[in-house]
């Protein structure tokens, strides 16, 4: 089975966010594989181990994403591809990324494409379904279970807490929700092996794309921090009195009940 994973390098979830020069400050920040993409990589490896085939992890980004791609290889993916847009694209959006990925994927005959359902930085969750639509294949988002049987698939989709059991067929794109699996840590032998696995680097030229073909449809005009919350009021006194005061404050001061 020919399996592709769409991966994004993101800020570590523990990182504090600061702004400098109108942009999110990346100096000294730790980067990781987007947590939802980790589920995608794990699922791809499990599907391959059960059905045979090959897992290729693809990322659109800069040279720095090589580190996260190596981690994916160390987890057990077979190949990695970095589509390096550093020299060509300054401000892409989801249209840009989806177009590049689809252009790369269109002649790959993928049976299964797995992505995270959302990246924790931009938080749009658009790229997976966009890629499926451009490739003309079906998709299921926010999945928590995937069973492949020949060319058909049974998928459980999380719908705001409810679960839908969906039947569909390959080729298919799915996006991973938490609960799909427990991503493995790379093992030491895995890390050693990963160094020898292929990590190809492409640029827009290699995909016969011009900057104009992928020019963003939207633009960020400002990034700002939410107003700092003032320290709240910690109540004092007998517990019963505190509770009475709290209810009164919520009712008369905050007016939320």
């Amino acid at each position, binding site marked *: 089975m020919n399996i592709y994973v769409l991966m994004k390098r993101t800020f570590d979830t523990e990182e504090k966010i600061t702004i400098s020069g109108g942009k999110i400050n990346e100096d000294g920040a730790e980067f990781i594989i987007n947590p939802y993409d980790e589920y995608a990589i794990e699922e791809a490896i499990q599907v391959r181990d059960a059905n045979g085939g090959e897992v290729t992890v693809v990322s659109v980004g800069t040279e720095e994403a090589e580190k996260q791609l190596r981690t994916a290889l160390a987890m057990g993916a077979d190949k990695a591809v970095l589509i390096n847009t550093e020299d060509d694209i300054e401000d892409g959006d989801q249209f840009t990324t989806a177009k590049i990925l689809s252009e790369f994927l269109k002649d790959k005959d993928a049976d299964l494409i797995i992505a995270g359902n959302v990246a924790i930085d931009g938080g749009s969750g658009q790229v997976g379904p966009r890629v499926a639509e451009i490739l003309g294949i079906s998709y299921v988002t926010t999945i928590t279970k995937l069973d492949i049987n020949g060319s058909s698939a049974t998928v459980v989709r999380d719908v705001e807490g409810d679960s839908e059991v969906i039947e569909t067929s390959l080729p298919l794109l799915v996006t991973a929700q938490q609960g799909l699996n427990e991503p493995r840590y790379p093992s030491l032998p895995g890390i050693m092996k990963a160094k020898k696995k292929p990590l190809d680097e492409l640029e827009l030229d290699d995909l016969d794309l011009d900057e104009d073909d992928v020019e963003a449809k939207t633009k960020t005009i400002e990034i700002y921090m939410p107003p700092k919350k003032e320290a709240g009021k910690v109540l004092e006194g007998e517990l019963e009195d505190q*509770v009475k005061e709290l209810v009164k404050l919520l009712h008369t001061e905050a007016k939320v009940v």
Partner: protein
Amino acid sequence: MARKVLVLGEVRDGSLRNVSFEAVAAGKTASEGGEVVGVLIGDAVSTLASGMIHYGADRVVIVEDEKLKQYTPDGFSQALMAVIDSESPDALIFGHTALGKDLAPKIAAKLESGLISDVTSLEEAGGNLVFTRPIYSGKAFEKKIVTDGLLFATIRPNNIAPLEKDESRSGDVASVAAEIKDLRTIIKEVVRKASEGVDLSEAKVIIAGGRGVKSEEGFEPLKELASVLNGAVGASRGACDADYCDYSLQIGQTGKVVTPDLYIACGISGAIQHLAGMSNSKVIVAINKDPEANIFKVADYGIVGDLFEVVPLLTEEFKKLKVNA
């Protein structure tokens, strides 16, 4: 610039979800005096059209087909594309719900348009419609504009206030024909887990429990408080990982992002990943034994104490308030 805006209404259990009315309000802002056209898709939705008009839509277009009884990306995109072809809108607004998140990118790809997801406010500024949205799970915000093509956004529930309901408003309701065929995903079964009680993403009040809840039974007092306040129960990752509750309740960076009017955190320490999911709530109350717990830093009101003592007292006090009201 006056625009024609299509607003997708969302139906759940035979009623319009609140986010539909919020989307109409957003559509009104985006229309700048143009027209707001509600769109309803389903197997029997025509009776709901007046709801969208009462909340500000000028008219409503419906697509009905028995194959649209349940949402599927293929079915709903075929229906919506038929409406887009017949209406040629300047803007599209959906809710940033499970349905909106799934469908909007597909439509954007079909139209080769931009899409601004998870918008919490929008306004006209400097000749542009400017959309504000949280990034990095609410640790920062960005303002975005559309530079090319149609305006397209999904709005986060509970952030844009609906317009006042006016039952005297009336408007045209028309059907658009669409051929719904070749659905590639078939829903075999729906397992209801979350929907006992109030929907977490639209709840005005959320009572959330963390590791301090200690067990599955420990959630009982939280559920009682939630039912008195007509709220929903949520949880931190810690509580979910410890198997005290289902992952469908999880609030945080992974899990749901919520912005209720009132968030009561019970026995939640306040890890940065949890704060990312709830820190934009209007009023936050923290109940925790540990006075140093991080959650007190984002709380508007705090009680240092045992949640198993505090929560039942709170429930009683709110009951009294309701009786007196």
